[in-house]
């Protein structure tokens, strides 16, 4: 029922508005409700992929994945920090295709963003079956090809 979802979205957004703003005067609140309604409408227009039945499981699976990703970020940031300050001969740029044929749109987005977020690997193209990545070194490409990240993303959103 679209009207119900509109209302729920506006209520959730307005709760965040109240929490962030902390300024409870009538014109401010009116402005808040108006902008929440605008955001709900814009989001509806974007026609985001509908995955209602997964939403609640994602709420606890995604944060757990983020913790793992944070550790990966620490490791790869230090690697790239060394490469940036070290000699250019240490670079061995490589392009790797990651097979992602079985993934949902959410999993594709999560995997693509995670690859970009860990320095040393960069998502340059996504289509329905594979993610093309540019890697700073051959070792980073091998790590990616090992598939640890793909498996964890698949565990977050098994489809």
């Amino acid at each position, binding site marked *: 029922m679209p009207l119900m979802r509109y209302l729920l979205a506006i209520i959730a957004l307005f709760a965040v508005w109240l*929490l*962030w703003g*902390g300024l409870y005067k009538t014109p401010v609140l009116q402005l808040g409700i108006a902008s929440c309604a605008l955001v709900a409408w814009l989001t509806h227009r974007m026609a985001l992929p509908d995955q209602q039945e997964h939403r609640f499981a994602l709420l606890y699976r995604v944060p757990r994945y983020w913790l793992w990703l*944070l550790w990966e*970020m*620490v490791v790869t*940031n230090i690697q*790239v*920090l060394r*490469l*940036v*300050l070290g000699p*250019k001969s240490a*670079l*061995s*740029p*490589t*392009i*790797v*295709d990651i097979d992602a044929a079985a993934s949902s749109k959410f999993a594709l987005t999560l995997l*693509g*963003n*995670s690859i*970009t*977020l*860990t*320095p*040393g690997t*960069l*998502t*340059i*193209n*996504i*289509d329905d079956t*594979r993610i*093309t990545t*540019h890697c*700073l070194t*051959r070792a980073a*490409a091998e790590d990616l090809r090992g598939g640890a990240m793909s498996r964890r993303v698949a565990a977050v959103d098994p489809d």
Partner: protein
Amino acid sequence: MNEILDLIAGLLVVAGSVFVLAGGIGALRMPDFYTRIHGASLTDSLGPVLVLGGLMIYAGLSLIAVKLAAVMLFLLVTSPTATYALANAALLSGLRPEGVEKTSTDPETPA
């Protein structure tokens, strides 16, 4: 106890600044467009996480810490999306990565 927390917060902010600075150096030093993106990506991955994490410790358990966490969350979702838009635009307009070992096997992507 407060002094120790302030010290940890300061160290985290300084460590984050080191990564942001290294990102700037990387963007200047790397040889081609794609590797420059790799260098610059230091600026928007661990750098802001450490800086905002340090500020969260400094703020203590308060609404400010929650807001900082929200800023970090938005940053970690939006910055790789923006980076992808940049890299994908370069790829689609036909810019080839320099010195790449294995080229893409996909006939559709001009890599």
